[in-house]
């Protein structure tokens, strides 16, 4: 018997502030229906919203993929550019390259990536300037 798996791909358009947050809202709804522990749920909520907003603000468009297996929730964000030239710098708290529009909407505090890393059990980021960025976050359902 194959392992039960929930997988859903959410496309996220660049600059689409009007729909920003819809993917993470759908993800939350699913996890609540699955009965995921409240603590884990909260961490996924925070990280999924941050990663979705990153796609809206910084990327040229991409996808957010939710995968759930009986052990963990995995969020995977992939975009088609522009890529992060210096990942270490991008991971620094308070560092942001958000534009004026994003800042005027209250984003760009430079806490996005650090918040994701803090909330996830595992965090991987790969990026190539001019190509794109992929982020994979794992959230163990036992909360570890």
């Amino acid at each position, binding site marked *: 018997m194959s392992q*039960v798996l929930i997988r859903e791909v959410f496309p996220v358009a660049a600059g689409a502030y009007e729909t920003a947050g819809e993917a993470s809202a759908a993800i939350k709804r699913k996890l*609540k229906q*699955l*009965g995921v522990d409240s603590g884990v*749920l909260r961490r996924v909520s*925070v990280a999924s*919203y941050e990663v979705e907003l990153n796609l809206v603000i910084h990327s040229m468009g991409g996808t957010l993929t939710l995968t759930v297996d009986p052990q963990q929730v995995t969020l995977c964000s992939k975009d088609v550019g522009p890529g992060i030239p210096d990942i270490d710098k991008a991971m620094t708290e308070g560092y942001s390259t958000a534009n004026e529009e994003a800042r005027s909407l209250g984003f760009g505090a430079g806490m996005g990536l650090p918040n994701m890393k803090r909330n996830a059990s595992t965090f991987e980021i790969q990026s190539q300037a001019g190509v794109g960025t992929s982020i994979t976050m794992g959230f163990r359902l036992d909360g570890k």
Partner: protein
Amino acid sequence: METEKKRFHSVRLEKDKCRGCTNCLKRCPTEAIRVRGGRAHIIDERCIDCGECIRVCDYHAKVAVTDPLSSISRFKYKIALPAPSLYGQFKSLRHIAQVLTGLKHMGFDDVFEVARGADVVTRAIREKLRQPGMPRPLISAACPAIVRLIQVRFPDLIEHIVDVRQPMEAAALIARHEFCRKHNVAPEEVGCFFITPCPAKVTAIRTPIGHETSAVDGAISVLEIYGLLSSHTRSHTMDESLLTATSYGIGWANSGGEAVAVCPENSMAVDGIENVIRVLEEVENNKLSDLTFLECSACTGGCVGGPLNFENNYVARSSIRRLVEDRERTHPEEQVDVSLLTKYPLSSPKPILPNSAMQLDDDIVEAMRKMERIEEIYKRLPGYDCGSCGSPTCRTFAEDIVRGYAREMDCIHILKEQLKIMAQQMVSLAQNTRE
């Protein structure tokens, strides 16, 4: 899941009046209503007694069960606990004491303002806000429909709910104690009756969250006493000494009143259950972590918007503002003695538990299997969200099929498609057998 023997709900359906339309179905914030056999049904586990369905039902088939005024005779001594929103129900009222005096003439031995309870609760919450390590924002526990909404739809925010009992509970505790001491009577002889603007409070009295029993003995709706009280407010000389609450406590009747009293520096107030849901989503996303206190009311305008009130909520709101205008602006922090906070049990001894009514299954693997099937079925549905099947949306319909409460043919659009195919088959069958 919560293991209450039988869930009590104030909100009920009057079957004979129900026409099986989709008004309540579409508006229920917890998707707790289904139409089956031409009548609405309320799913007990999901209902939060917010009263939205009472408000939107054109046929008055949704009602709130409250206690009749005659029920006060169960007790030798009766105390009325008027919600501050009651003061906004009378257009020509000049002074709040007219309402309080009127209540005494209706058969109550004493009146204790819930606004005074709100003063005490204000002080208690302010103390909580000073404690280190509190989640941000702390969410008000004053609206019981919101507390239940959080249990059902936002279980991850339960820890944000401030652990202080509602003003009506504080009022009942203090009222009973003071009355017994003053008149030297036993507590069992004293009945405390809340004059309620909403069904959620009725449910909160019968099946409290966070504590075993309520200090309130019954709830009489504003509508029930409105006519009688209205005439009593005009016909007597008033006793001004009955009014002791601060203008802040009275202000709790309106949306924003609690926030201003509790934390004017850094709070926000949201009213209307759909708005509350949107803001709670933001709290989940950590977007409001700079905020200290969040007031949420299920009803538009706050308690003045309760479905059991008489007056339009905007009119009531401005009436209350007018009535407190010339009252001295003493803050509850100066008025309420800090010793009251330890004298009465204002915190909850029982934790607030999540309500798993939205969960597909207790076992996550089984829940995942069900979710896969829901997605499969959902893809075949038209996505009109018309409600004709009796479920509020196509998605909930797919869920209902998987939970075993509906069949795919309950969707009239799928049925139509099937009939079309069958008709075509019949035609070709007839043609093939002609010779």
